[in-house]
């Protein structure tokens, strides 16, 4: 066969095109255009494999994907920040439209009303869900949203201590730590009991339901924070908000959440979307894009990016955040998901999770050697104390074709955090309980 040499399917330029263009430019070779690069560093050796045609590449990548054990094929009881929920097909379809996928930040509102109006819808739904007055267009994901909330609280209060309830997700804590380095914030770990907050505390951060799946006493915590002039920052869960009272009802000042559970695939941890909502009076301290409704020169409704003087491209080193490219498409997915579920659907999903998690807990609790170390109301996750170390238990489960729960033994002795959602059938739950019983003490 003719060996054609490689022609990129992504670049339309032919050799004829190139020579016409180079001529118009007035150079005799393309090298002249790169002459500003120091000659000794020009066109270095590039140790990259040869081009691979789509068919061959697809085989290779599918093989890599095939090496992974896929939840769904295997019952899976992992949560801890990423949740498996049923996603109606319509949600995927909507977000797959090229006009949403391949546009960019809506700097030119006249040709971006699609992105702008759906983002306005997103802000509205996030506000509704969290019970807050305003929401932005989204942050990278839940943990950075939380970190930015801490920075925002520090700006608002001009204080430098961040109190974090000890039931906040450890990985969220890590991100808080990363973001605290620059401004030099101090993180104080506090318990849900009575540790006093100091008057230097910018905010109290609470996760609700907490990392272990249980409800915190938001009312009491809000009082404790506000009593010291600190803000209450709640890291919430959007599916839980389908049934539980929203942080807004507890006078929270800033509410963030990981939006992934609303229609977004787990994708090994990203891309996700961070929800970010607050009281209206703090609006101008918010990070991130914000879309507002306005009118055009002919009086027709339209949407624009607004309050941009908060942002890096205007305010530069004095911006409320450095965030630029965010996760608009993922925000769109959650918008479509929320709109599809609607008033009744989200409540229903939340209650399903609640019932299924409790069903699972009730089965496991009855197995000799297993117990539930925590009291209180839990939602979709709960901690089980296992007779064996959780890592070992998980290995045994995997041998039986089950992906178990998250090992939280660093903080709870032999603790395993199990998550059960509507995506777990009763048969899956039953098989988990049977397997745990079998595994028993070893």
């Amino acid at each position, binding site marked *: 066969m003719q060996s054609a040499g490689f022609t990129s399917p992504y*670049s339309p330029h032919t050799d004829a095109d190139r020579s016409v263009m180079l001529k*118009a430019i007035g150079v005799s070779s393309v090298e002249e255009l790169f002459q500003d690069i120091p000659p000794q560093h020009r066109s270095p050796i590039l140790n990259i494999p*040869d081009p691979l045609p789509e068919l061959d590449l697809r085989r290779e990548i599918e093989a890599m994907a095939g090496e992974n054990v896929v939840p769904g094929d295997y019952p899976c009881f992992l949560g801890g920040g990423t949740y498996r929920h049923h996603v109606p097909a319509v949600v995927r379809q909507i977000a797959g439209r090229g006009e949403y996928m391949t546009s960019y930040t809506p700097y030119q509102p006249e040709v971006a009303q699609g992105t702008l109006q759906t983002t306005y819808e997103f802000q509205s739904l996030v506000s*509704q869900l969290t019970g807050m007055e305003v929401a932005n267009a989204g942050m990278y994901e839940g943990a950075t949203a939380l970190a930015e909330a801490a920075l925002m609280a520090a700006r608002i209060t001009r204080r430098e201590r961040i109190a974090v309830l000890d039931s906040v997700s450890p990985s969220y804590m890590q991100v808080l730590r990363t973001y605290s380095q620059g401004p030099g914030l101090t993180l104080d770990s506090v318990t849900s009991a009575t540790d006093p907050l100091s008057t230097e505390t910018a905010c109290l951060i609470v996760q609700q339901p907490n990392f272990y799946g249980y409800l915190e006493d938001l009312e009491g915590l809000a009082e404790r924070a506000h009593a010291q002039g600190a803000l209450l920052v709640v890291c919430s869960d959007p599916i839980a908000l389908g049934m539980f009272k929203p942080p807004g009802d507890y006078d929270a000042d800033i509410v963030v959440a990981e939006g992934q559970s609303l229609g977004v695939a787990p*994708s090994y941890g990203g891309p996700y979307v961070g929800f970010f909502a607050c009281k209206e009076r703090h609006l101008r301290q918010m990070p991130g894009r914000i879309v507002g*409704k306005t009118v055009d020169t002919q009086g027709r409704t339209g949407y624009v990016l607004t309050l941009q003087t908060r942002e890096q491209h205007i305010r530069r080193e004095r911006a409320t955040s450095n965030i*630029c490219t965010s996760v608009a498409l993922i925000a769109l997915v959650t918008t479509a998901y929320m709109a599809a579920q609607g008033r009744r659907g*989200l409540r229903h999903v939340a209650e399903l999770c609640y019932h299924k998690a409790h069903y699972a807990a009730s089965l496991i609790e009855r197995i000799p050697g297993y117990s539930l170390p925590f009291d209180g109301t839990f939602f979709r996750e709960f901690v089980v104390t296992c007779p064996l170390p959780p890592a070992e238990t998980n290995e045994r489960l995997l041998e039986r074709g089950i992906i178990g729960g998250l090992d939280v033994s660093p903080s709870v002795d032999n603790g395993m955090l199990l998550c059960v959602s509507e995506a777990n059938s009763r048969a899956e739950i039953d098989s988990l309980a049977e397997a745990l019983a079998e595994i028993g003490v070893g």
Partner: protein
Amino acid sequence: MDRSVRGRMGTTLPSLDVPEEPLPPDGLLRGDLELPEVSEGELVRYFSQLSQLNFSIDTNFYPLGSCTMKYNPKLHDEMASLPGFSQIHPHQPESTVQGALKLVYQLQGLLSELMGMAAGSLAPLAGAGGELAGMLMTRAYHLSRGDTARSRVLIPDSAHGTNPASATMAGFEVVTLPSDADGNTDLDALRRTAGDDLAGVMLTLPSTLGLFDTNILEVCRIVNEAGGIVYGDGANLNALLGRAKLGELGFDVVHSNLHKTFSTPHGGGGPGAGPVMVAERLVPFLPAPVVERRESKEGGESYTLATPPQTIGKMGAFHGNFGVLVRAYTYIRLLGNAGISQISEDAVISANYVLSRLRHDYDLPYDRHCMHEVVLSARSLKRDHGVSALDVAKRLIDYDIHPPTMYFPLIVDEALMIEPTETESRETLDYFIDVMKTIAQEAQDDPALLHDAPHDTPNTRLDEARAARRPDLRWKPA
């Protein structure tokens, strides 16, 4: 959603197949949650209709400078949505996600090679996240050496806003570095400011003027000698792929925007990814996690998530935007060595073609060959006819072309920053050039036509002042 009607359903309710548990006390439960109530068909129509109001790469030429709006191959989306990638949970035991870890590992290697760096982390979630990571590494590096007085970061006046914002978030004081008359770094100014308190510089190469800084080796030398770190904002790497490695030029750390150079879709404003690749001395400080390869004695290999010894920490709850990484990996592997070098060649030819054909119709602030993008100015149009860069941009819409980036970089008056990318055909460029010439002519003949543009969109120009003055940021249930 304006079309919500009580009682409509947009989906079905999964059935309950377990016994019911009594609900928690009412005090904990919320009342009605006013989410939209629409049928599935209405939902599709709503989002489909709105989508058509967007200009996008799939439908329009989109020469938005600094954003590298290139074609996003459809194969990438299929690869990212393979169940073996899209359905795996970030907390899965490593033994069950070896394929995913291998892909991340390989991409780390490919990006390091492309940038001439020792190693990198794919954890940052966008360009700005990469910048923050880079600046925190800079900070951690100096502190690890007990070098506590390095508080200042130099940033060119032409830099993107995220640069100073990121430096600030990392706790630095930002000092602006001027450009010289050719658009290069002003070496004298640099020498003057590069002292003991210098933490580093943040440079974009090519610069946001679309120019390759011919002083770059000297810049790196000066900063290095002063004890500072050279940070590279890799947003413009499309010009350099296979043509120059930033590591070889003297950069210590570079982020790249996978949603720009590596063609992952922009999604109306993300998601993207902003991997940071670093020279040897910064490797211990990389953000977590990185993926490491282990070989067993029997020759088997395995991959594992690792935390660099002096890591600055995590940039997000998990391991980076994996779905975006899959796309970038697919891109690099399909194009391979030959295809990757073709990118920069074609991108640079296209930009210079536009430059050379429009140089007499618009002002050209720097009379040099450009790299992958060209910054023009509407300065003369403004002066002579009262027509601004904004007017030109809006008028392009009437010709179905997305406006270039406007008023950036800040050091060029009435800037129009045009990045054609390598994926646009010569015919498209010729059309754009013709339109730009027509508009320049219209500016003389009928300036009002431009002031009132765009004309054919569902919305004419929008009242941004009003939006900011009286923020209406959400609907509220009736």
